[in-house]
Structure formats: C-alpha cells, structure tokens
C-alpha cells in the first residue's frame, strides 16, 4: 500500500490487530487466589519491563487495592454506582460489584519497584523485570 503520510489512524488499526492476535495467548496464568475475571487485562512488553493495563472506569483511586508478591499480582476493589433519588431508570448497562483478581506472570519482577498509575479510568501497573532475570548475552570464546 502506498503511504504518502504517516497515518495515525492506521497506527490505531495496527494496535487493534496486534491486540486481537494476542487474544488466545496463554502468557498470563490465573493466580492461586482471587479467581475473578474482572478487570480484563492487557499486558505489554516495553523494553525489558512489562506493563499491565486494565480499564476500570468509575473507580476511585481509593477503591483499588493492589498487592504484589513474587510473581503474583492481585487487583481487588469494589465499584459502586449511585443514582439520584427518585430517578426513573431508562437504561442500565453499567455494572457494579466487587472484584478480586490474581494473576501470575511468567517472569520474575522486582516487587519493590512496581509502580501503579490510575488516570481516566485506566489502571497501569509498571513491572520492572528483576535484574537477575534479564537475559544476558553470552560471548563465544
């Protein structure tokens, strides 16, 4: 395909295709506890490190409880939805409730350096790979 200009929309289409391609990946294992499936997670590799991203719209920072132990990450919380008093509901598609999900990732991470960010309903967990787990190049003597 002839490309005259770098097309930002095409970049989105490629990202969407790439995400679809990893739908069947078994990279992430279910953790030993917290069997819930919410929130849905996407995992990306960024250089040596990994980033877990989840969409949790409507949650406050304080509603989220994130724990890391060895290779297991647990994301728990409660989402509540309040309606105004005396309101007549026309449509109700948003869901509320509690969630508790634990996943094990197949790499060793540096649990002390895990960072969490929450903005605009998106939770991002930055997982630095443990120094001793990083691949080393072996020089052939």
């Amino acid at each position: 395909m002839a490309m005259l200009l770098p097309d930002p929309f095409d970049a989105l289409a490629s990202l969407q295709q790439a995400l679809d391609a990893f739908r069947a990946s078994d990279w992430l294992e279910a953790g030993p506890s917290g069997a819930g499936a919410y929130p849905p997670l996407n995992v990306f590799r960024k250089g040596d490190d990994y980033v877990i991203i989840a969409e949790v719209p409507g949650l406050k920072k304080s509603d989220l409880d994130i724990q890391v132990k060895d290779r297991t990450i647990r994301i728990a919380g409660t989402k509540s939805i309040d309606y105004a008093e005396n309101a007549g509901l026309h449509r109700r598609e948003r869901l509320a409730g509690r969630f508790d999900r634990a996943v094990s990732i197949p790499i060793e991470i540096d649990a002390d350096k895990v960072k969490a960010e929450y903005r605009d309903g998106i939770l991002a967990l930055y997982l630095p790979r443990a120094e001793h787990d990083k691949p080393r190049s072996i020089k052939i003597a």
Partner: protein
Amino acid sequence: MAKSQELAVQQKKELAPKEEKTVPARYFVPSTDIYETETALTVIMEVPGVEKKDVSVQLEGDVLRVEGRIDFSKYEGMEPVYAEYNVGHYARAFTLSSKIDRDSISAELDDGVLTLTLKKSKEALPRRIAIR
C-alpha cells in the same frame, strides 16, 4: 445489594454505525446508564482512557452524538504479549425528545466516566395546579 455481588466482565461492544468511517480503526459503544428525574435527564457513559479534551458532545436536531477519542500514542513502543480486550475510540448517539432544554446541556468527565446532564425545558416540567 450491589456491594456483595461479584463484578462481571462486560465484553466491549463494537459500534455498528450507519455510515462507515473512512479510516479502518474500530470504534466501541460505551456502556451507558440513563435516568430521569423531575428536572433532568442524566446520561452516564463509561469511556476509560478518554481525556477531557478528546470528548465531543454534539446536538444535531434531535440527535445527541457523543464521541470520545483515546490517545493511543501512549501505546507507542509497547508490544502486546497478552490481551483480553481491545482498545479504540468510543461513539454513541441518542435521539432525544423535544422536552430537553437544548442550551443547558452540561458534561463532566471523572475517572473515565462521562456524565451528561440534560435539563428539561420549562414547558416539560411538572406543574402543580392549585385548587381554589
């Protein structure tokens, strides 16, 4: 009641628009609650990842059109290894009744939730008739 309930995963619904976009990217339909009180109609949409500057709310005739665009440049240099959901812009449109006061629609975006408040027009408000 809702507190004790396990939160289920909602698959994101892809938008099936009347007219196609010229670009190949996929859009999604935001989960929406709509409720009505005596004075206003409130529309609440979940648009995670959308920033304030990337929301557009338009009223053309009776049709309220909401679009939220995500900034996917944040995904640059990131290589997916595992995916459970897809990302994309959001779009949804509703046909309003004529009872809405068109000039006083307000919008608020908080933690990925867009709240639109559509005030009812004066003629549509319930009036109390005093009995003499």
